[in-house]
């Protein structure tokens, strides 16, 4: 049972990571990156590393997402194609 949850979470994490790469709206991309961190922290907890899960949830999903959002608010909102 646990292995199924782990595999499903891994697939969802991969999907969120691809969304973070390919989304044009930067705010949505940052939220997708935060989702990757959130699922990574649940995976760490399932694989018996509660220490790392705590750090990942607080730093990866919480603080770094908000720091990226602060940075985006001070700059442009969309990715610019230079061709």
């Amino acid at each position, binding site marked *: 049972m646990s292995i199924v949850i782990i595999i499903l979470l891994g697939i969802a994490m991969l999907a969120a990571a691809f969304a973070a790469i390919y989304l044009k709206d930067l705010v949505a991309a940052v939220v997708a990156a935060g989702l990757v961190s959130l699922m990574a922290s649940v995976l760490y907890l399932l694989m018996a590393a509660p220490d790392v899960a705590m*750090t990942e949830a607080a730093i990866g999903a*919480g603080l770094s997402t908000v720091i990226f959002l*602060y940075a985006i608010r001070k700059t442009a909102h969309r990715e610019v194609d230079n061709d």
Partner: protein
Amino acid sequence: MIKRILGRREEEDEQVPQKKRREASEFVQTGTGLLVPVIMMFGAYIFLNGHLSPGGGFQGGAVVASAVLLMFLAKPDHYLSHGLLNVIESISGFGYVLIGILGIFLAGGFLDNRILPLGEFGKLLSAGAIPVIYTLIGLKVGTELAGILENLKGLNS
């Protein structure tokens, strides 16, 4: 010890109104008032119990900083005293190095925890100097991450 840390935390929150910004909604403000003390206390719990349960100085400090972040989201035009944050951070770093060096002279080597009585396994006051070290690291990480957030928020465009 808990009272001392929380007392310092409350001193840190002295708030001076800055340039006016858009206020958060009533829900966010009420929820923040309810949750921030609990989250800060949970952070202090994590680093005080670092030698007994999962977590430690860094994790506890990160949880404390996320409480500060929630406070910033609810009240964007308030700010923390930067000087006090720097003072707490510097004193914690100094204390960490001092305990490490005490370990060289009183026990086996740098950061040796046997400079204080080891106590009984499983008690809160045990494991020698490790609770002290974790408390210092928790204060340092919490104030440092809060300072980063404060810096990023403070420069208004």
